[in-house]
């Protein structure tokens, strides 16, 4: 759709001697992978080097289907001072993501076909990761009138969401789930009961009580998760639940799936690795919505990723200006950047600690997103689009936000020593990122 229009012809790329890990085909073996004309050409224990091919030595590295982030905020149009589609797409590439889905809470809101077209055009210019626009559910994300799903899908939108704002009206959500079926797209909801969450800045619990910060109870999310699953059951539509954060939500999703409801869900790397304790000292880099919860929630979310109750891991990459986070906790905005730390954090805190197996992680980052949103990629099968992520699972590095490709520096992982990092990212046969040094 977008990157096929790249002007230059591609050289062959040979990824030599890596651990080829493609859960979509059940492949996990050492070998070479050849990319030609934008598709996967061949995979074998050993391939010769075609004339003129660019060779990437992958010894000790993992060669996986390109990661797809179903949830990020690229801020353009409207807040180009904080992030642009180009800087966001480059940050994605640096983090090993070959595609990202851009949420529509831009200024103005991405709620029409022209706005969707603009995002695709900017992504094409950037020539980094693919960018799939997500259209708004309601005009201006006001929660009143449905946006034109048909025209937005025609222009390239792959889903609809009022993310950043919950869909408060159950009637509107029902209608969206019904109407979206014509176009075969999922409806994504930011599950938050607005009156329960009003004014809250962190998880409601002992830490918020001690800090004197207004809390957001887990039930603010769970009430809406339950509602959305019931509405998906009512309508037969596909509900995708964004950034799940509680044990109760996991139980509800498990129930919904057992009932045969078309429900899918995502969780962020930070909700899998951090708890409300990160808010101690009023650290605004730990302020996000949904808030970081408890160790009990963390365990339940990890288990849900392992057993597939939660289908995918998505970053909820949310850049903010330095000054915006440098203020009183209650006044600081929600959200952190995540594209460039996701892989390292997940490998360090989940895979190297044996909470998750590597093939499961690759599935949740690459294969499952393509599968549940029917997007290109997510596979290294012959003839598949040549979207490939090469990462060194043991490369140690320290997070230095000033080196981010993203304009956002707001991360709770600053100065963390991580183990594992993308070393090359290939989109449509083009090498869009290579780690220097």
């Amino acid at each position: 759709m977008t990157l096929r229009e790249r002007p230059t012809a591609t050289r062959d790329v040979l990824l030599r001697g890596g651990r080829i890990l493609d859960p979509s085909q059940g492949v996990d073996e050492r070998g070479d992978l050849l990319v030609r004309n934008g598709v996967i050409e061949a995979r074998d224990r050993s391939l010769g080097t075609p004339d003129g091919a660019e060779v990437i030595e992958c010894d000790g590295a993992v060669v996986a289907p390109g990661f797809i982030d179903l949830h990020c905020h690229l801020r353009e149009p409207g807040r180009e001072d904080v992030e642009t589609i180009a800087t966001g797409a480059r940050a994605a590439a640096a983090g090993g993501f070959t595609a990202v889905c851009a949420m529509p809470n831009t200024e103005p809101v991405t709620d029409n076909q022209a706005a969707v077209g603009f995002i695709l055009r900017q992504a094409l210019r950037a020539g980094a990761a693919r960018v799939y626009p997500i259209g708004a559910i309601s005009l201006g994300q006001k929660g009143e009138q449905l946006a034109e799903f048909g025209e937005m899908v025609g222009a390239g939108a792959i889903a609809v969401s009022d993310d950043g704002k919950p869909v408060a009206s159950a009637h509107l959500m029902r209608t969206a789930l019904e109407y979206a079926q014509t176009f075969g797209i999922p409806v994504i909801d930011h599950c938050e009961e607005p009156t329960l969450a009003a004014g809250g800045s962190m998880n409601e619990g002992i830490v918020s009580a001690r800090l004197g910060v207004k809390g957001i109870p887990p039930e603010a999310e769970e009430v809406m998760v339950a509602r959305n699953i019931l509405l998906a059951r009512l309508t037969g539509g596909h509900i995708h639940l964004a950034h799940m954060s509680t044990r109760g939500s996991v139980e509800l999703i498990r129930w919904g799936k057992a009932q045969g409801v078309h429900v899918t869900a995502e969780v962020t790397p930070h909700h899998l690795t951090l708890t409300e304790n990160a808010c101690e000292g009023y650290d605004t880099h730990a302020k996000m919505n949904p808030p970081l919860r408890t160790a009990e929630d963390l365990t339940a979310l990890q288990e849900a990723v392992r057993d597939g109750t939660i289908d995918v891991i998505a970053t909820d990459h949310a850049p903010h200006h330095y000054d915006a986070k440098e203020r009183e906790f209650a006044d600081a905005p929600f959200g952190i950047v995540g594209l460039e730390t996701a892989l390292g954090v997940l490998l360090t805190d989940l895979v190297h600690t044996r909470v998750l197996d590597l093939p499961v992680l690759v599935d949740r980052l690459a294969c499952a997103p393509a599968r549940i949103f029917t997007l290109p990629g997510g596979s290294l099968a012959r003839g598949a689009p040549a979207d490939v992520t090469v990462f060194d699972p043991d490369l140690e590095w320290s997070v230095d936000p000033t080196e981010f490709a993203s304009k956002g520096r707001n991360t709770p992982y600053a100065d963390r020593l991580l183990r594992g990092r993308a070393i090359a990212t290939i989109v449509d046969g083009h090498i869009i990122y290579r780690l220097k040094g």
Partner: protein
Amino acid sequence: MSKTLGKDLLGLEPLSTEQIRLILDTAEPFKEVSERQIKKVPALRGMTIVNLFFEASTRTRISFEFAEKRLSADTVNVASSGSSVQKGETLVDTARNLEAMRINMVVIRHSASGAPHFLADRIESNVINAGDGTHEHPTQGLLDLLTLRDHFGTLEGRRVCIVGDVLHSRVARSNIWGLTKMGVQVAVCGPRSLLPRDIADFGVTVFKRIDEAIEWAEALNVLRLQLERMQAGYIPSLREYNRVFGVTRERLERVRHDVVIMHPGPMNRGVEIDSDVADGQHSMILDQVTNGVAIRMAVLYLLAGGRPELADAAKGGSDR
């Protein structure tokens, strides 16, 4: 444990029992200064203190100012209604500008929990929390402790119940930390909608009904009920609050033992407390106010590096 307070006084939660006792003991000699004809000692001569009040306050601000002046510090009051954000200048800019004028201490009152911590992390001056959002009001907690200690002689084993809107009260939090660290048995009583969900994890007893609380307690610390709580839907009406949770003479007379009454002020007479209780013989409300000045003198003196064993000498009028 350290015999000093460190750079800042941000709350009672991080303080040790020894540090709290140090402040209470240091306040003792300073009480007498306020009883003199000439209410001034030179302990903080040459020091510059800024009282940065981002939220309306009469009692606390005046109490700090008296404490500073009686220690001979030079003081400047900066009052601003509304938050710094509304004012257009960020809190950190305000603080850095003040510090550029070479000050020694900042006393801050702010509507956002954590604002004093934010400031303390970013400036060299000593920071004293004069009440931040719904977090802590450490000098109030300390003056409550001093008032109780004056009355009972010792704190260990006493039974104190905090009554009212604990959820939104910084006074309640500082009291809970201070009292429990000093070995006092602490209870809370109020409508469940105005208690934090995890209140029991603070190590306090929870009473559903005020009569049970009065039966148990030797002292009640009655919190102010903000009118906004009714508008925000936490309670149906002030009238019903008074009928269900109000501390009335009738209720106090039902028990055999004396119950001492405290209130951080300002009071809503006829809502959380009846006038004849507030003005009654067991009320220590004005003692609290008097002790407030001594406590604040002690905190200022200790943070400025004053040696506790010299507090007596300091008040005597000799230079340190």
